[in-house]
């Protein structure tokens, strides 16, 4: 038999659990159905042969085994790596440079004006941006070739030549995210205490030394975050510029992992292969994010 005290406590606990479940239930349902179930289902599908309509057949590890023999997969994987390298100057180096320059402007209104303007491309639809750039890349009347002509240089067929197609995608992506990464670096710089910088100045450090020994190390959480997002961008979000600007061509020279998944799934209707590639990409992401979390110190869950 429970005494009154115990019964009261049980009632109170029950009420807490019930309340929690009522409020989190919509979230739990949506996350379960549209986030967790898809991973499980993708995993199941990656062991099948299926084309959306016919009969599903189990094929064991066949999809994974054949994946590495497919040119469209291996070049997507290699290209993802090239994108990561090619995007680094646009995602990290230039934004960091701009952030350091901008933080030297002490006039708040002027600094704010610069920030606002640099950030503008971030809020625009990537698909629209890509099409606008497609016009800028136009071989006959595009802005870029017209500019080159001004300097007496011959233009390129930017998007259809092997040498320039990937560069074009990198330029558009870099342009789109330069400002937002700059904003993140500024936010990181603001958190660095003035005392450190004052102290280093007293020690006789010049601007570069202060940057290299004080600011750069203290910025590492931001740098790690941006580098991680650029890896994820290269493998996943670069889909938009790739699909619009080159459709992966010429040949497979500009595909990435997400574009390969799209091709396998929605153009060749090879759902098994597409799912296997998706699972491969997820594992890759998990590793990269895991490293990032280690570097930044978790999601910040503190029970107060």
């Amino acid at each position, binding site marked *: 038999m429970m005494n009154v005290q115990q019964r009261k406590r049980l009632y109170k606990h029950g009420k*807490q659990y019930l309340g929690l479940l009522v409020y989190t239930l919509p*979230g739990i349902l949506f996350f379960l159905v549209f986030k*967790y179930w898809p991973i499980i289902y993708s995993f199941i599908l990656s062991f099948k042969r299926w084309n959306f309509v016919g009969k599903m057949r189990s094929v064991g590890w066949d999809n994974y085994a054949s994946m590495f023999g497919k040119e469209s997969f291996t070049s997507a994987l290699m290209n993802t790596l090239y994108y990561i390298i090619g995007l680094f100057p646009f995602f990290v180096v230039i934004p960091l440079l701009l952030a350091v320059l901008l933080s030297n402007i002490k006039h708040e209104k002027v600094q704010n004006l610069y*920030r606002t303007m640099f*950030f503008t491309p971030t809020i625009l639809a990537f698909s629209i941006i890509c*099409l606008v750039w497609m*016009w*800028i890349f136009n071989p006959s009347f595009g802005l870029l070739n017209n500019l080159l002509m001004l300097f007496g240089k011959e233009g390129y067929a930017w998007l259809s030549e092997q040498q320039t197609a990937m560069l074009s995608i990198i330029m558009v992506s870099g*342009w789109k995210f330069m400002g937002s990464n700059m904003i993140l670096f500024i936010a990181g710089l603001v958190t660095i205490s003035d005392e450190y910088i004052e102290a280093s100045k007293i020690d006789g450090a010049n601007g570069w030394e202060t940057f290299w020994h004080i600011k750069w190390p203290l910025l590492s959480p931001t740098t790690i975050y941006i580098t991680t997002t650029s890896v994820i961008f290269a493998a996943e979000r670069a889909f938009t510029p790739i699909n619009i600007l080159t459709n992966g061509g010429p040949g497979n020279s500009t595909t990435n992992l997400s574009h390969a*998944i799209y091709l396998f799934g929605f153009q060749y209707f090879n759902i098994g292969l597409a799912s296997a590639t998706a699972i491969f990409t997820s594992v890759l992401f998990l590793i990269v994010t895991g490293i990032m979390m280690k570097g930044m110190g978790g999601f910040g869950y503190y029970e107060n």
Partner: protein
Amino acid sequence: MKIKINIGRILLHLTLIIFLVVNIFPILWMLSSAIKNPNELFTNEIRLIPKSPTMENFFTVFRDYNIANWLVNSVATTLGISVLQVLVAVLAAFGLTYYKTRINEVIFYFFILTMVIPFQVTMIPNYILMSQMKLINTWGAVIIPNIASATTFFFIRQHIRGIPKVFYEAASIEGANSLWALRNVVFSLCKGAISAMFILCVIDGWNLYFWPLLVLSKPETRTITVGLHEFLDHEAGNRWGPFMATATLATLPVIILYVLIQRNIIDAFISSGIKG
């Protein structure tokens, strides 16, 4: 000494302005191309302000394309996603701060861990789900799979967590229930954060491309970002003039919103990140 500083200043602004021109010019080029007539559009001359500006491209777009439909679809799906995404996130975040149980942390991580699930892995199963629910080519197919968002939840939860305990205690002394606390404490104290997140969701929803491309195949069901594809025609040549007019129409609402509340957008972006 004085002169040296000034040279430094000038170089600083010069560098920033060069980057800024690169940053802004393509947007201006889009606006300028939208009001050029074909003769001026297809030349090798570089001219930002057209000699004879025309609204012809805008008329063409409304006459020959489903643009009114696209705009309605974009507005409806954007609002649907933003309202439901924020609502689900606020309810969950509130529940997790108001009630204390042993499973709070489990539920928190259940939501947060979905951040690392790439879109590509959910894409095919969600497409199959939508087609089984007979929702392909409807607003529902765009909205429903996009309601679950870990970043939105995380951002709102960070703000609700910051509400001092005393506010809730006041509520419980007066015998008020959780709904009262949600309405009078959370919505009134976190109004700013919730609306900032809502605006980020609107921008994200408006800019959505890949998913609507998959689930909206009928021309009249397309959103504006997907509809823009109709201007690309590899045989007859791309219709750049009308495209630029449509792109301008699709972009102006976002730019206006941004000019009005840029400070809030940037701050919300810093603490949550735009999903792209």
